[in-house]
Structure formats: C-alpha cells, structure tokens
C-alpha cells in the first residue's frame, strides 16, 4: 500500500498529502548527524572514561566496531525487517539492500534514504549501549558476534512492534523515541550479559575507579546535545512536536542531573561529577519514550523521578545484589526506559492541569487504558529481550569458545591483550 502511495506521490500534478518537505528533511538530516554523534564519540567517551586505563581502547573499539557492523546489517536486511510491512511481529525483506528505494522515494515527507539513515543511528547506539554491561572482560569476537545477532533477533523485532506498525503500535503504545526499543532492550541485555558473563575479576575488592572522568564528562555533554536529535528528530518533522520534544528532553536532563547530585550530597556529603552526569543520563533515558507526548511541567516530574528511582536502583544492583553491570546500563537505561514508558502513559493525559500532555495513543481514552498498554509493552520487551539475549549469549559462548577473555588477559588489560595497543603512551 505504501509503495503504491509513494509511486502516486511521485507523479507530477497528483495532489497527495505527502510530498517532500524541505524543512522536515533539513531537520532530520541534522538529527541523523546528532544521533550518530551520540555514539561517535559521545557514548564512546562516556563509557571509556569510566573504565580502567588498561581497558580504555577496548571500550572505544567495541563501540566503534559495533557502529560499523550495525550499519551494514541495517542495509542488508535490518531496515527492511524493522520497517517493512511484514506482519505484526516482524517486517519483510522487500527493501533488503534498499531495493526499490531511490533518491526520489519518499517516506512521509522525507526522502526514504534519509528515514533509513536516521533510524540506522538508533540501531547503532542500542547495541553499543550494551557494552557497558560486559565491559573489561568480554572477548572482542564474542562482542561482535553477540551484538550482530542481538541486533537482528532483538532490536529488529521490537523496533517493528513499536515503530514499524507492529502489534504494540496497533495497541496505541506510546514510545516516542525509544524507551522500549532502545533503553529497555539495551538495559535488559546488559543485565543478562552481566549475569551470564559474571563479575569482573576482583570485583568488590580491587579498585575499579573511573580512570578519566574528564573524558566521561565530555561524552556526557555530547550525549545531551545529541539527544536533541534523538528525541527532537523522532518527530520526523520540523515543527512544534520536535520543538516541544527537544524542550522536555532538556528539562528532564537538567532535573535528573540535579536530583542525583542532591541525593548524593545529602547521602554522602559531597556532590560528584560522576553523579551529576549519571543523573543527566537517567533524566534523558526516562524522558525518551515520553518526549513527544508530555508537557514541560511533566518533564520536571519525570526528571525528578528518574534521578531518584535510577539512583536507588543503581545502589540496589551494585551494593545489594552485587551484580557487575559495570557501567550501570540496566539501572540507568533499563529502569529509566521502564519508568519513562510508564510515565508517558500518565502524563500524555490532557486532563492534568499544568502537567497535561498531548493525548493518548491509538484508541485509548483514559490513563488506565493507556497504562495497560504501556505495561504490556514494557513487559513484552523485557521478557523477550531477556530470553533471547540469554540464549544468544550462551550460543555465542559456544561458538567463540568462551565469552570471556582468559583470567590473565583480563588482569593485564584488554587493550594490550586483545588489541596490542596502549591507550596512553605518556
């Protein structure tokens, strides 16, 4: 159906609702660059600064390589399987290798090649986020194999369910920019990976403090700015939707950052840089699914809750349960995604006074109804991701003869043992 519409839209003189809009196109061209920037080098730096110096290159290498591989997969079949018609659960291969899609092909008011590239940057950052869960101990071959398989078997289906016209979209689930598709999937995968690959050697006794928080802070700044493209660009239009999405994103980031900072100040006596940037990420991750549906005042609440909830979950996972999700991907992105997807169901309501949003999704007519849908989406994403990630990790472990590097290699550091390089030759 979309194919026919596209063909018709290309015929000169044919009056159609969707033609190329240069404003929309310009903004999404920009957003695409911003979102890629979030991975290269935003996330790269954010993560790399958090590990020990002997592993700094391994993190950079993993993120960079994943970005490259995800791109190729996206072209070969990823885009088509995510956004092709298909059925309620997965797309099809009609646009494998972008077959039939040319410079003039449209997707809405954008050139389809642009929509392809924009969505690709989301497919890039999601597997890259998982790196935080298994940092400093996973074999490079295992990382590549797992990330590729995971992209195809987890990201593509979930993306289709929510954004590709799949079953969650049919139910009117609200996920503007990737609370479920990006943050819950990556967060859960990281948690599962941390449990399967087990804790780092010396976890709990050895010192594993971040080696370069200035690098992490630099990455954090890039993530904040890039997120304007992530959420703002998800409007797929240069209009008020994009503007408001950008606005609420920003407010949530600032609020989340300050919340975490103040909690640390009261609890431990000193506000920290790591705390404030983590709070920022929590705020950003949490607002992501809600960014197109909620108002500014709601963003304050969302940011505040993000800071509080993600803070306590981080402590729970690290201190109480002693799970080595090394860079806290699950408590920040996973929990943030869950919380944000849930809150979207509340704050989309137009009946909350100053905290009102912009309307329910699909055929839903009440907060209760919307929340039901949100919860189904959260649960389905969580369970599906957990199960498939687990299976893939086990499978990859067999194929690569062990997910983890040898104990000695881990102690020496991955940079020198996996890549024969040192990050710093001072």
């Amino acid at each position, binding site marked *: 159906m979309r194919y026919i519409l596209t063909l018709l839209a290309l015929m000169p003189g044919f009056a159609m609702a969707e033609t190329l809009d240069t404003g929309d196109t310009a903004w999404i061209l920009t957003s695409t660059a911003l979102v890629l920037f979030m991975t290269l080098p935003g996330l790269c730096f954010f993560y790399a600064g958090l590990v020990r110096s002997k592993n700094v290159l391994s993190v950079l290498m993993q993120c960079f390589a994943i970005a490259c591989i995800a791109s190729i997969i996206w072209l070969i079949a990823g885009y088509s399987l995510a956004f092709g018609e298909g059925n309620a659960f997965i797309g099809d291969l009609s646009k494998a290798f972008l077959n039939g899609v040319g410079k003039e092909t449209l997707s809405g008011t954008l050139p389809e090649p642009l929509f392809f590239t924009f969505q690709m940057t989301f497919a890039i950052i999601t597997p890259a986020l998982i790196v935080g869960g298994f940092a400093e101990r996973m074999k490079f071959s295992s990382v590549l194999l797992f990330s590729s398989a995971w992209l195809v078997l987890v990201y593509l289906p979930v993306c289709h369910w929510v954004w590709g016209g799949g079953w969650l979209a049919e139910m009117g689930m609200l996920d503007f920019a990737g609370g479920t598709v990006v943050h819950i999937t990556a967060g859960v995968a990281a948690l599962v990976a941390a449990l399967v690959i087990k804790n780092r050697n010396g976890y709990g006794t050895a*010192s*594993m*403090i971040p080696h370069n928080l200035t690098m992490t802070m630099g990455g954090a700044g890039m993530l904040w700015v890039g997120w304007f493209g992530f959420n703002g660009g998800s409007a797929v239009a240069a209009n008020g939707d994009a503007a408001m999405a950008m606005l609420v994103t920003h407010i949530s980031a600032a609020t989340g950052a300050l919340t975490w900072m103040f909690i640390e100040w009261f609890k431990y006596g000193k506000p920290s840089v*790591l*705390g404030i940037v983590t709070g920022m990420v929590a705020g950003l991750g949490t607002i992501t699914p809600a960014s197109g549906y909620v108002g500014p005042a709601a963003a304050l609440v969302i940011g505040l809750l993000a800071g509080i909830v993600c803070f306590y979950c*981080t402590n729970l996972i*690290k*201190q109480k349960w002693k799970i080595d999700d090394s860079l*806290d991907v699950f408590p920040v992105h996973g929990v943030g995604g869950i919380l944000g997807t849930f809150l979207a169901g509340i704050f989309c309501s137009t009946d909350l006074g100053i905290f009102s949003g912009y309307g329910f999704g699909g055929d839903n007519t009440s907060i209760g109804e919307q929340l039901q849908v949100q919860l189904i989406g959260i649960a389905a994403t969580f369970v599906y991701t957990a199960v498939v990630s687990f299976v893939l990790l086990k499978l990859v472990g067999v194929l690569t003869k062990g997910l983890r590097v040898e104990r000695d290699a881990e102690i020496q550091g991955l940079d020198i043992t996996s890549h024969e390089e040192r990050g710093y030759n001072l």
Partner: protein
Amino acid sequence: MKKITAIIKPHKLDEVRAALSEINVAGMTVTEVKGFGRQKGHLELYRGAEYSIEFVLKTKIEIVIEATRVDAVVEAIMQSARTNKIGDGKIFVTNVEQTVRIRTGEEGVEAV
C-alpha cells in the same frame, strides 16, 4: 658525600624548594611517588560504590650534598615540610660512593 631522600606531601614542594634555595642547595631531583605509612589511605565514592585507595600520593626529593651540610639540609626540609598532621613524611640519609659531573668529568665533592 651523603644522599638525603625526603618523602613529603606534594603541596609542600614549593616551600621546601624555597627553604633549600635559601641555604644554597644547588640542585635536587624530584619524583612523584605513592605509598603509605601511618597515614592510611582514604575512601573514594563512585556511583555508590566505595573504594579504598591505599596509596597516598607523595613527592620524593633527592639531594646529594657534602657530609658537613647534612644537618642544615635536614633541618631546612623538616621546617618547611612539616604540617603537624599524620603523613608529613620521612627523611633518609645514606652514603654516596662517588659523584661525577657528566659535562666536565669532575669527581667527588667538586661534582656535587
């Protein structure tokens, strides 16, 4: 000839250098080191996880000097490096067999 090795708190380096300059100590070698004595390490907190940092950063100063001047140098270092808190450091005095100036080939006390 004697070698004076002083481990001091890093922020005291400028004062010590100034004090030694006043008694005409011609040169020194400075290294950044870490260690501990009675001053145990400290705790650092990252995302709620506490880490015990056992080694404390210190500065090591090495001076080779004629035996007759040792007391004056030790006294100067002690006065300028002292903060009266644990971790002020220590001074060690050892013997030096030979000293040679590379540029000229001078040996012994002339080379110091």
